[in-house]
């Protein structure tokens, strides 16, 4: 058995080594540079809404941008309103809802919920995918494996190091863009900080799978492409399940339904994580929801906490499998 202080000490050293590796490979500065770029972009945000006023608590959501006209909507009494938001010091201009808060949240949902949660997480997975395979090269790891520390602590330390590295950048990204947007628009919505756990959980779950591939193959290429394929599979499974359940699709056999349900609960659920963030940001007030997500919500077939815990359980199981494989591997 491993004594706890030894395990903690090993994990701490491995985390330190991962941060040194990220600094030496310039990855730290590349990610920091992207965050700085996004923050400067946000600093150049301005919102111009003629006749601006505060939202009334009982007011219906405004989903009709000022540039669009819909006779049905106008007949239904939905007011046409809103203004324009300039981004990046006038580089882009986009129509926005009639409330400043909504306009800023609209930008933040795009930044954290769509840009960082998809492109950002994928880039982080690709950029960090080489950390474990290079560490696990026999020429690099044999002397470390001959130390008294158990193998699983080395793997856990490296995994945790990468997750903490990405968590640090998630914090920097959210802090930078939140501060810049706040300074530029005067809107300081703390709910945006929920993006940090969203991004970290999303990354940690898929990086666990990347770690398993790295241990099994010791190849960066396999880890990168295998993880991307798995990410696509999980999105597809997540949307398919919500589509089947939400829209009562006809002609689907009971077996298929059970298989999809099992696949949904076993695999990570990236759409659900995004959905939780969108809901927290009250995205329905200013943009159309994802139809599948709205449908399962209406049918009470979406359980946010269970979804998060199931995704985390998947990561834990995959990491345990990776640790077992690592322990059994001959060097």
């Amino acid at each position, binding site marked *: 058995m491993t004594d706890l202080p030894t395990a903690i000490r090993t994990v701490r050293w491995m985390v330190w080594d991962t941060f040194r590796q990220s600094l*030496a490979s310039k990855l730290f500065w590349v990610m920091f540079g992207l965050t700085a770029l996004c923050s400067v972009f946000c600093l150049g945000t301005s919102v111009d809404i003629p006749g601006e006023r505060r939202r009334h608590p009982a007011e219906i959501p405004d989903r009709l941008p000022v540039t669009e006209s819909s006779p049905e909507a106008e007949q239904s009494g939905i007011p046409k309103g809103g203004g324009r938001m300039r981004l990046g010091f006038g580089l882009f201009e986009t129509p926005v809802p009639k409330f400043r808060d909504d306009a800023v949240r609209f930008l933040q949902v795009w930044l954290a919920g769509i840009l960082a949660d998809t492109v950002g997480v994928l880039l982080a997975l690709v950029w960090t995918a080489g950390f474990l395979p290079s560490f696990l090269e026999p*020429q690099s790891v*044999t*002397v470390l494996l001959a130390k008294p520390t158990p193998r699983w602590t080395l793997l856990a330390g490296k995994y945790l190091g990468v997750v903490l590295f990405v968590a640090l950048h998630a914090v920097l990204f959210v802090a930078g863009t939140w501060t810049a947007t706040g300074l530029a628009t005067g809107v300081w919505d703390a709910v945006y900080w929920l993006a940090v756990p969203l991004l970290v959980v999303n990354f940690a779950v898929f990086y666990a799978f990347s770690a398993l591939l790295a241990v099994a193959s010791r190849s960066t290429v396999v880890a990168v492409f295998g993880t991307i394929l798995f990410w696509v599979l999980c999105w597809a499974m997540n949307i398919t399940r919500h589509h089947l359940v939400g829209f009562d699709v006809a002609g689907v056999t009971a077996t298929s339904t059970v298989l999809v349900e099992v696949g949904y609960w076993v695999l990570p659920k990236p759409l659900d994580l995004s959905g939780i963030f969108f809901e927290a940001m009250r995205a329905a007030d200013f943009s159309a929801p994802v139809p599948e997500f709205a449908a399962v919500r209406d049918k009470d077939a979406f359980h946010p906490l269970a979804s998060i815990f199931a995704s985390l359980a998947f990561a834990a199981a995959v990491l345990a499998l990776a640790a077992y494989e690592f322990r059994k591997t*001959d060097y």
Partner: protein
Amino acid sequence: MTAAAVFEGVEKVYATGLLGRGAGVTALRGVTFTVPAGGVFGLLGPNRAGKTTLVKLLLSLAEPTAGRILRLGGPLSDRRTLARIGYMHENHAFPRYLSAEELLSFYGGLSGVRGDALPARVDHLLNRVGLADRRREPIARFSKGMVQRLGLAQALLNDPDLLILDEPTEGLDLSGRLLLRQVVREFQAATKTVLLVSHVLPEVEELCDRLAVLSGGRLIYCGPLAELVRDPHDPSGRRRSLEAALRPLYEKETPA
């Protein structure tokens, strides 16, 4: 005194093929011998004799297929005994982004050297291997000889009872080799154990008290060096070179 290592009927077959279901490659066949505590024990043999595999098994880098191994009196499952072992590997690739000082602190931390003892030990070893003036330079800038010196320093971090040197002089210059011999002699004087795996026969002849010779995964000799190099055809017991002593052993094992 507890033996440094005991090998009893050790076999190792490396799995091959998809999911390890191939016939496998046999690296060791029924190897039995003891490395006594104290002194310098040489492990010799031609390429693919199984020397490195034996060291890997002793260090829990691989698991034996059959047989029993005791490491410093304990079973392989007890990793605490690894805290009393130093291991220097000929071609180890240290993280190139770390400096010599950072690497020794990192490896020392994982070797169980704690608290204030760690910086003092790192400092002492950097001086010992002649890298004190390059302590903050990244390893990427080091020559092979300097990396080997660093490898020796990391093997000594925990002040081990058993020092395993796998082809240690590879890439070392004259002063590096002299340093290594000095370290080995200090271990000898302190009645600690050195397990030396080497192809450099004069070095083995100079340093080792006892030898184990492997060929084709089998043990073909285990005993005192003096006995092996004594010429059996010379009634006066004149010494022959180690190379001359090993040649007939290897030829017997390897059909022409």
